[in-house]
């Protein structure tokens, strides 16, 4: 048994780590056993933890099976990192259509959390580009499914938090790119109304949109980032990636009441000065923290939470405003505060998070009771607005909010693998 923590580092627990290394043996390894599949453990909360139990670790199940440079179709094992896909495919003129804020997650993890990125309104979420997947169940069965074959299994597994089985292989459709470069634009905004005007106004002309919001300002001032793929080739170029790291856990969180306000002020004003167009390499623009190894350590020994919610657009303006005020009043918060509007597209997964509306994501250093109390206030706002919380980030949402936020839960449970259980499933589903 070894101690394993997730990205939020809230706690660590003993797990039995069973590495999956051979895709032809996974079904036999999993049959008759109990456990939880785990990728690169970048989820923040407990979706990827099974304290006291077994983890089927997929990071050594990381081989490509086949790639067709003419069609952009890729077959690979579930433990391949998104980074390795893109570094291989870029030379052929292809990239993944959807990636989140980090490349350091596995294909299986990307499917199980149906991750989304800055281009949701154009390209949807990760599951929208999965052509098929192979699932190994603890009853010994192996299910080959896709949007048109055994579609119920597919829809349950996309966003299914690993609870339907162990994803062994997947087939993905990549998208064509001219090169690695993006044309980017940065626009400061002074309040939420300006944010929504920018968000709506940008949808037609910009493929990628996201914003940083000053969580201490209470009024929702921030920076709106938008980008489009540039028609500039030069596929061989890679940015000079000097990886730095946070080599040890500082005794207290570096993100605290003293550091946050000056950071936010500086960040807002410096970037307002730099506002305007620029060319950026997609890796640096999209995955800015991937080169800072173990950045999660900067929150100190108690770790941190991420709170990410989506609320429907009708209630969005009021709900986001109320949440920002509650956060400001609490004095808690973080550098990382993201505000984004989702596109008007249904997600493929029964338990997928993205839905039309506006999403707010923030990191909070774990200060114990005051942090949890703030979350309860935020929950009330989300609940009233008819929104939901993202399971991939969650460590503490109450069961009622999970049930109200995910109306297809009962349908999803029919596909659940009874041999698979996580700390999250025990917390939110009861087993």
């Amino acid at each position, binding site marked *: 048994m070894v101690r394993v923590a997730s990205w939020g580092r809230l706690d660590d627990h003993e797990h039995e780590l*069973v*590495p999956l*290394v*051979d*895709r032809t043996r996974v079904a036999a390894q999993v049959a008759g056993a109990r456990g939880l599949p785990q990728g690169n453990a970048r989820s923040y909360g407990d979706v990827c933890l099974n304290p006291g139990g077994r983890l089927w670790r997929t990071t050594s199940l990381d081989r490509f*099976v086949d790639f067709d440079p003419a069609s952009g179709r890729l077959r690979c094992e579930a433990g391949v990192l998104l980074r390795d896909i893109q570094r*291989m495919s870029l030379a052929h003129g292809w990239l993944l259509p959807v990636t989140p804020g980090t490349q350091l997650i596995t294909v299986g993890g990307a499917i199980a959390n149906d991750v989304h990125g800055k281009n949701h309104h154009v390209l949807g979420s990760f599951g929208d580009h999965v052509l098929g997947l192979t699932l190994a169940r603890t009853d010994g069965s192996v299910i080959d499914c896709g949007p048109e074959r055994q579609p119920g299994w597919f829809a349950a597994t996309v966003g299914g938090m690993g609870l339907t089985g162990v994803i062994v292989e997947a087939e993905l459709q990549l998208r064509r790119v001219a090169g690695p470069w993006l044309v980017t634009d940065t626009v400061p905004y002074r309040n939420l109304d300006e944010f929504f005007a920018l968000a709506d106004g940008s949808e037609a002309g910009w493929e990628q949109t996201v914003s940083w919001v000053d969580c201490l300002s209470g009024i929702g001032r921030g920076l709106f980032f938008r980008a489009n793929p540039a028609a500039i080739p030069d596929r061989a170029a890679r940015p000079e990636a000097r990886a730095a790291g946070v080599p040890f856990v500082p005794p207290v969180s570096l993100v605290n009441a003293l550091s946050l306000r000056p950071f936010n002020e500086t960040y807002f004003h410096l970037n307002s000065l730099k506002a305007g167009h620029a060319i950026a390499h997609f890796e640096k623009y999209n995955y800015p923290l991937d080169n800072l190894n173990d950045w999660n350590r900067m929150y100190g020994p108690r770790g941190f939470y991420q709170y990410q919610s989506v609320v429907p657009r009708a209630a969005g303006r009021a709900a986001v405003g109320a949440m920002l005020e509650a956060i400001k009043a609490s004095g808690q918060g973080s550098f990382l505060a993201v505000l984004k509007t989702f596109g008007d597209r249904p997600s493929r997964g029964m338990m997928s998070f993205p839905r039309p509306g506006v999403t707010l994501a923030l990191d909070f250093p774990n200060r114990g009771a005051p942090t949890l109390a703030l979350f309860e206030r935020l929950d009330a706002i989300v609940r009233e607005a008819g929104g939901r919380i993202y399971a991939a980030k969650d460590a503490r949402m109450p069961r009622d909010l999970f049930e109200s936020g995910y109306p297809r839960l009962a349908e999803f449970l029919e596909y659940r693998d009874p041999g698979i259980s996580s700390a999250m499933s025990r917390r939110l589903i009861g087993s």
Partner: protein
Amino acid sequence: MPDSPQRIVIVGATSSIAEHCARLWVAGRAVALTLVGRDAGRLERIAADLRVRGPGSTIAVRTVDFADARAIRALADALAHEGVPDQVLIAHGSLPDQQACQRDLGLAAEALEVNAVSPVLFAEAFAGHMEGKGGTITIIGSVAGDRGRRSNYVYGAAKGLVTRYAQGLQHRLAGSGSALRVVLVKPGPTATPMTAHLPQRGLAPVEQVARAIVQGSQAGKPVVYAPGKWALIMMVIRHLPAFVFNKMNI
């Protein structure tokens, strides 16, 4: 010749470290790579992955009995006949359960066979062909071979034997003025399936160790610790007097 692809042979190619070295080699210029192992199916799956990563490279797969000296000799002869390798990586090994080895002598014998005798036989076989031409033989040892300790001394003994062998071969090649270099890499604990049952903190990422091996092979240094900090750590460990070392629970 600068234009013909580098010929690389990886023995024990199904090991995690070896596979990551292969990925680095095919990501550079095109190479002619031969993967040697015991399980044809696994080797083929690795080869298919490498073909995606390095479409310009040719990847071949060979199986052999790792304990049979005659078979090892025949394989080295056959591969050299196709073209004397420029780079050989000897990467096989497996971490046995020390307590089980103490209870079961047969297990101990197998562990010594796979971790000591077999790597040496492969190195000897290839050295014979490469001595006249040049190139590099990289052998993966371990920091465990620097000093026997109670938690893994059967494995450590085997890796110690490999260390002594590499030294001897290096001495031989220096004497004959050969251009062939031997690089002995000693990884510290690395995060691979072999160590999934050990505390994960402090295990080096496998990509980092693979990069050290590929770079060390290029540079031709006689001994490479991966990561480099282990050179200092093991120097201290090697020099601790017995009355201190014996009190340590490692």
